[in-house]
């Protein structure tokens, strides 16, 4: 469980996040949605500690992250897995070495155990055949899979995904979404996904936070989106003709 209480963040005079409070539950796919520039990436980076927040509190299972020093945060970070927008795989390492990297850095596993764990993670995301290839030699969708495999290598309690299906075709995007949802349930992780993809919202949005101009504008689940009276959310969700038609038919 991750809880945010009145989180504020500004860059100079620009208030990017204002009084954001929410409770992200374990075992569910929690989504942060909003238009480009609404502050969702800043919020995600604030939650994981890549940005220092100006005011407010962030709790990881009742452990306050905001007041921790570097070494305390380091312990929490070892419980985090992150899938970056571009994958952020290490170019100089093969697929297998990328997944093995967190194990080499933090685990006390033997060589055999590490090999087994890497094999399990690659198998889980269905990319074992590419284990000897470098990131530049595989497709965008495969890179996302490897990034997921690396993120789950240390069996994290918290999984963060920054636009995990951006740049992917709709079929691969849905596969990646489903994979994240399955892994979340399988390992009972608290997963937070940052997206503006409406297909993801409808497919896997068990809990959704809608941010508009740095403010929490709406909170709910995918089933409630169609009935919302919130104008800014309606404008965001039904921006495309496809979703307008779906709403009419419903």
């Amino acid at each position, binding site marked *: 469980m991750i809880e945010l209480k009145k989180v504020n963040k500004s860059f100079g005079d620009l208030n990017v996040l204002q009084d954001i409070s929410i409770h992200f539950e374990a075992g569910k796919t929690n989504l942060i949605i909003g238009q480009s520039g609404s502050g969702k990436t800043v919020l995600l980076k604030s939650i*994981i500690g*890549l940005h220092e927040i100006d005011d407010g509190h962030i709790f990881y299972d009742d452990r306050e992250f905001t007041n921790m020093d570097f070494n305390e*945060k*380091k*312990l929490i*970070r*070892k419980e*985090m897995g*992150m899938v*970056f*927008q*571009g994958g*952020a*795989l*290490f*170019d100089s390492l093969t697929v297998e070495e990328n997944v093995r*990297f*967190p194990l*080499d*850095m*933090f685990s006390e596993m033997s060589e055999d155990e590490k090999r087994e764990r890497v094999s399990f993670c690659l198998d889980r995301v269905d990319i074992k055949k590419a284990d000897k290839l470098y990131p530049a030699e595989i497709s965008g969708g495969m890179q996302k899979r490897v990034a997921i495999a690396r993120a789950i290598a240390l069996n994290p309690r918290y999984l*963060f995904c920054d636009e995990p299906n951006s740049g992917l075709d709709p079929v691969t995007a849905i596969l990646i979404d489903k994979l994240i949802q399955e892994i979340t349930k399988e390992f009972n992780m608290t997963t937070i996904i940052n997206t503006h993809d409406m297909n993801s919202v409808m497919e896997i949005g068990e809990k959704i936070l809608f941010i508009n101009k740095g403010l929490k504008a709406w909170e709910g689940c995918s089933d409630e989106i169609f009935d919302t009276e919130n104008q800014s959310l309606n404008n965001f969700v039904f921006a495309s003709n496809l979703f307008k038609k779906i709403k009419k038919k419903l």
Partner: protein
Amino acid sequence: MGFIEKIGQYMLFLNRVFSKPERGRVFFSQIIKEIYKLGVNSVGIVVIISVFMGAVISLQTAYNLINPLLPDYLVGYTTRESMILEFSSTIVGLILAGKVGSNIASEIGSMRVTEQIDALEIMGINSASYLIFPKIIAAVFINPFLYVLSVFVGITGGLLASSMTKVVSIPDYLYGVQIDFIPYYITYSLIKTLVFAFIITSVPSFYGYFVSGGALEVGKASTKAVVNSSILILLANLILTQILLK
């Protein structure tokens, strides 16, 4: 960002770089990789530059020794002194600032803009220490060897050029190379080489680490890294010469 602020940021950056490595075994293997990347891969360029520098110094000295009272062995003596005191440390340092510096700045800058550094941080790894500390250790370790190689190859280049053009005999040249040798000059130049190795790795790493934006900014950071590390090498050369040869 002001000059003083930049220096402050560089100092804080170095403070992060020089922290205890996460895993000793991983750190050691990183150092070995960096020794290969920064040192072994630079042997070719150091040899080429040094052989030509040595050759040119010997020929220029020979063609300027028009006074018959000046002995021929001065060609060997001048080549040795020039290589030991200045060329093999400073000029090779400047060349490496271009080759290694741009490589480091673009490598780390690319890692920054593709979020690979963020990925390290999220894992709880001190990215500055993990990426940069091994580079500094590797360069400080390997650059003195490159210096010695450069001196040796430069003097050999001078010997080849002067003997092939017959401006001085081989025995005269070799006599000049051995005469009035002051071992402290080697110490002085090795100290300079160590300082330059630190500049060549830490300054480009700093520029690469704080890149924000995209490929264009990585290119700009790479250029800034080379220019500023070259200026710092020249400045350090002046200061160290004043302190060590006083």
